[in-house]
């Protein structure tokens, strides 16, 4: 026996019970409340199509709201709670809505609640409280979810008789086979009707499939059919709320199949009659499962209503189990059901039911024109069978109409999918026309949609099947119309005066059954699928526990505070060290490309908008790159390492974009060039040494005179070959040292020793911002914001006069040279600190004419300076503006100036 609790009360279940079977075993009929009218709801099915028995299973971060009691297998200590009722299931205040239901037909909320948007929010507060079924968990999920790929020749969906046979044939023909089954045992319909093929057949078939290499996955649903026969499977490795063995609760499979065989069976239809939503009304095949599989007879006095032969198997199962069948109401004329040995009434259709303490007490039916009544506590209904065509339709399939079965069956498909078994050949039924009052005849039991609502939608002009669905919310509940779509289509076809196939069909969309969000996210849930990219020297930096700054997926040290310094204090100290002495920083994340070959220079002059071929060996220059529309999108430096070997650097933020751009130009536009452009961003780790003492540090490291500004030499530091580029971003004399990443720690240590010896400092991104802003150097993503031309950034004088670079024709667009464009300017504060990102306005209340892209302080002299963009900025130097930030309540009066405040002539670089 297994112990579980429901709404705080302890019960026991037998091994293999679903929660629904266990609840019925314990005589519990009322399990929930419907969405809109809070009407009492019982267990209606034995499968995934269950619209009513939704409970919250599990606790804490594992609690799963809206779990179908029919789709969870009881385990020791399972905790289940009913939903959507206050204070409790038996007495729910929400039931008041059903008293007001005459005023609340479909779409009532479009016709009232007028007034201001604020007033609607007041009504909405109460509507949202009443809406929704379960409560969302409030804690994070303790378990993990796995994603795994699989490839097979044949994927079989459904382990019923047809599916088992198909999987066996394919596996023994040597094909790679995967078979999936939602249930936790194989057999599907065979469990309900074992006589045809006994249990042993199921076991031997499964064993033979496995022996031939086939894979069988139970508790697994084929939930989505995508392109080129890719099917997503959701596999439960633990039941809702259960602690999984390896910490993985579920697995999402992405299966690429050669061919898919759908043996998904069909779903039994309810019948539409007044008060057909009362607990105690159940589908016939479901009742048969409870009797045969679980040995549970959920009623004393049973009535069966049907329009087909299948329900007589249920009658037989009940008879075998010794239950008392009060009557069988067969919609078909005599002699249907004549020799079944039961009390059969022909031309009999249920009219209405009555209840006591929320559950079924009696029902009335129209029998050959006369109304008759029976006392019964269980009414099993069988209104026909709807083939499960979801995956066939998701695969882009078409449907045919089977007149005998009054059902759609799979026809052609765009992909390699075929349907076999019950889903392909549903059983014939007798076409019934609802005779009951439409008012309380429910077709969508969870969203409380009645036949009257369908009629109302029709009357109000919502006549396409999609309008009908959205206006009435029919089929938009957790069962997605599995029990309601066909009833609604039937009614719509009647109204349109056409046969059901002409009435139209809503779209079948993934998933077949609802899928846990954590499973969809998989491992990505923890880091949003965005892995942190680590520097080569990550451990070395981490040891100094810097303040880290995210930059794309990288994390780079922002500053190295010591002795309780704040970020600003540390950054200013570091920046001063660079200005006055020497500083050292990690620049490994810069994009870097090694471009070799006779046509290397020609290739680079296509990518870069400046000249490159004029560089002598050992020399380098600043450069920038344009998009095809002429807009600057990146900048960097280019160095001629050897006769035919260049090193190009560009921004960290634009690295992936630049790699694609270079590959496009190389592979698509110039396939014949003799050039190799290799992405070496992570091959070289890089560090920069900057400051008046930088030259001394380098000399000590390489034992010779360091290269002059914008020159490059190969060298050796502590026995490690390096490349030295004499480039400056900070405005001081500086050198960038590139080392094969695996040897970088040695060079960093040697360099740090020298820098410490001269009591220099490590500096991070924050100090680098102070240095480069004062110097007027641009940042991609800051001043280079994807909207500025070379002229707007005062770079146009460096453009390659010979043209031929990407973006040249983009610059010819007339509006790019008209007045009114935003241009790069410097800004000096007259009063107050300039807020970064603030708007530049000529006077209070005026519309912005530009903004501050980067703000900092004069490192030595103090005083707030900034870079920004300003309409016609070049011609407005000296103007006084307001840098205003209403969101931060800050502003500063600023003077427009040239975009460099420190050593504009560049003397600091010369030796």
């Amino acid at each position: 026996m297994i112990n579980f609790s429901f709404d705080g009360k302890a019960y026991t279940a037998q091994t293999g019970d679903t929660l629904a079977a266990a609840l019925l075993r314990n005589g519990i009929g009322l399990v929930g409340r419907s969405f809109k009218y809070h009407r009492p709801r019982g267990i209606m099915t034995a499968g995934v199509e269950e619209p009513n028995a939704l409970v919250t299973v599990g606790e804490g971060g594992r609690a799963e709201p809206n779990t179908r009691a029919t789709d969870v297998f009881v385990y020791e200590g399972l905790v289940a709670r009913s939903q959507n009722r206050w204070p409790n299931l038996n007495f729910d205040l929400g039931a008041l809505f059903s008293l007001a239901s005459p005023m609340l037909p479909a779409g009532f909320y479009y016709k009232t609640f007028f007034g201001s948007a604020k007033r609607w929010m007041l009504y909405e507060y109460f509507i949202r409280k009443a809406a929704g079924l379960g409560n969302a968990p409030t804690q994070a999920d303790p378990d993990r979810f796995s994603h795994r790929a699989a490839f097979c020749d044949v994927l079989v969906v459904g382990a019923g008789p047809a599916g088992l046979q198909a999987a066996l044939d394919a596996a023994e023909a040597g094909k790679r086979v995967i078979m999936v089954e939602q249930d936790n045992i194989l057999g599907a319909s065979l469990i309900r009707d074992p006589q045809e093929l006994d249990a042993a057949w199921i076991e031997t078939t499964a064993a033979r499939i496995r022996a031939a290499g086939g894979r069988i996955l139970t508790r697994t649903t084929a939930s989505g059919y995508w392109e080129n026969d890719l099917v997503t499977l959701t596999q439960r490795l633990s039941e809702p709320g259960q602690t999984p063995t390896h910490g993985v609760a579920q697995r999402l499979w992405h299966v690429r199949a050669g061919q898919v065989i759908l043996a998904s069976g069909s779903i039994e239809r309810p019948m539409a009659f007044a008060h057909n939503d009362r607990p105690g009304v159940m589908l016939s095949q479901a009742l048969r499962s409870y009797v045969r599989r679980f040995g549970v007879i959920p009623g004393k006095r049973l009535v069966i209503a049907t329009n087909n032969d299948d329900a007589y198997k249920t009658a037989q199962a009940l008879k075998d189990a010794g239950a008392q069948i009060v009557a069988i109401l067969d919609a078909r004329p005599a002699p249907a059901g004549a020799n079944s040995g039961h009390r059969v009434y022909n031309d009999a259709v249920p009219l209405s039911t009555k209840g006591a303490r929320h559950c079924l007490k009696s029902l009335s039916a129209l029998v050959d024109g006369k109304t008759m009544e029976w006392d019964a506590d269980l009414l099993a209904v069988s209104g026909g069978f709807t083939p499960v065509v979801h995956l066939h339709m998701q695969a882009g399939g078409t449907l045919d109409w089977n007149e005998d079965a009054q059902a759609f069956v799979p026809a052609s498909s765009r992909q390699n999918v075929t349907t076999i078994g019950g889903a392909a050949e549903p059983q014939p039924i007798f076409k019934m026309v609802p005779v009951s009052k439409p008012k309380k005849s429910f077709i969508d039991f969870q969203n409380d949609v009645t036949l009257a609502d369908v009629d109302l939608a029709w009357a109000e002009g919502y006549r396409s099947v999609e309008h009908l669905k959205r206006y009435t919310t029919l089929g938009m509940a957790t069962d997605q119309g599995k029990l309601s779509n066909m009833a609604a289509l039937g009614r719509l076809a009647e109204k349109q005066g056409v046969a059901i196939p002409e009435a139209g069909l809503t779209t079948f969309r993934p998933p077949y059954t609802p899928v846990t969000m954590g499973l969809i996210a998989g491992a990505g849930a923890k880091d949003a699928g965005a892995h942190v990219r680590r520097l080569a020297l990550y451990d070395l930096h981490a040891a100094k526990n810097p303040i880290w700054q995210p930059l794309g997926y990288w994390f780079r040290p922002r500053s190295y505070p010591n002795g309780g310094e704040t970020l600003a204090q540390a950054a200013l100290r570091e920046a001063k060290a660079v200005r006055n002495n020497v500083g050292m920083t990690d620049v490994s994340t810069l994009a870097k490309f090694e471009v070799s070959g006779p046509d290397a220079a020609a290739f680079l002059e296509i990518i870069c908008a400046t000249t490159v071929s004029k560089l002598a060996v050992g020399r380098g220059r600043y450069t920038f790159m344009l998009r095809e529309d002429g807009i600057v999108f990146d900048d960097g430096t280019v160095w001629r390492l050897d006769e035919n070997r260049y090193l190009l650097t560009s921004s960290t933020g634009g690295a992936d974009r630049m790699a694609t751009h270079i590959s496009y130009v190389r592979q698509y536009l110039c396939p014949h060039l003799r050039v190799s452009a290799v992405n070496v961003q992570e091959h070289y780790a890089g560090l920069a040494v900057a400051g008046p003492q930088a030259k001394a540090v380098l000399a000590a490291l390489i034992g010779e005179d360091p290269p002059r500004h914008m020159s490059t030499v190969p060298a050796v530091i502590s026995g490690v070959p390096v490349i030295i580029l004499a480039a400056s971003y900070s405005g001081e004399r500086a050198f960038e040292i590139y080392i094969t990443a695996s040897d970088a720690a040695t060079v960093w240590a040697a360099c740090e020793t020298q820098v410490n010896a001269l009591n220099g400092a490590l500096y991070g991104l924050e100090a680098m911002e102070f240095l480069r802003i004062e110097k007027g150097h641009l940042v991609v993503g800051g001043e280079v914001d994807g909207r500025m031309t070379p002229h707007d950034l005062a770079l146009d004088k460096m453009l390659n006069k010979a043209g031929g670079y990407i973006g040249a024709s983009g610059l010819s667009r007339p509006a790019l040279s008209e007045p009114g464009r935003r241009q790069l300017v410097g800004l000096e504060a007259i009063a107050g600190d300039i807020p970064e990102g603030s708007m530049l306005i000529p006077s209070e209340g005026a519309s912005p004419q530009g903004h501050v892209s980067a703000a900092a302080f004069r490192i030595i002299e103090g005083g707030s300076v900034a870079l920004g963009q300003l309409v016609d900025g070049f011609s407005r130097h000296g103007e006084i503006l307001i840098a205003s930030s209403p969101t931060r309540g800050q502003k500063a009066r600023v003077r427009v100036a040239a975009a460099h405040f420190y050593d504009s002539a560049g003397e600091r670089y010369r030796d």
Partner: protein
Amino acid sequence: MTKVTITTLPAAPLHVFEIWGNAASVAKRFKAAMGFALPATGRSGGSDALRLIRFEPTVWLVEGDASALSAILADDGAVTAIGGGIVRIRLSGPGWWTLLMEGGVFDAEDPAFSVGCSAATIIDHVNVRLHVISDDACDAYVPLSFSQGLLHFWKEAALSL
């Protein structure tokens, strides 16, 4: 529970050998000089001393001493060092192909993906290059900056293969 052990191999010299022209004659020159042919896409060639693995149409990954290769290429291609940015991770034990299916999209379980085969694909958002070195071992070449994240992902996945 299928077993797989995950070990990070020490850094090794890695280069790219790229041909931009006269591919056929370079192939002849290579075979003459090295004694084995340039491997086709999805294959590897050579020995532990010098192995070439092909993932791209005009580029081979060279593992080992690449000093002799520039001469063979002359003006028809270039050799560039890239080893600093790559971490080699060896997956050994019968569970390596199941592990590669976790968070992946490539069919590592295909019997045709056997010794000497190579393939580049994406696993857990990371660009990974695979080279099968024996029935129960496969090397993965992973970008340095992502290697920590992928190692963590593989170790966690290995617990519940």
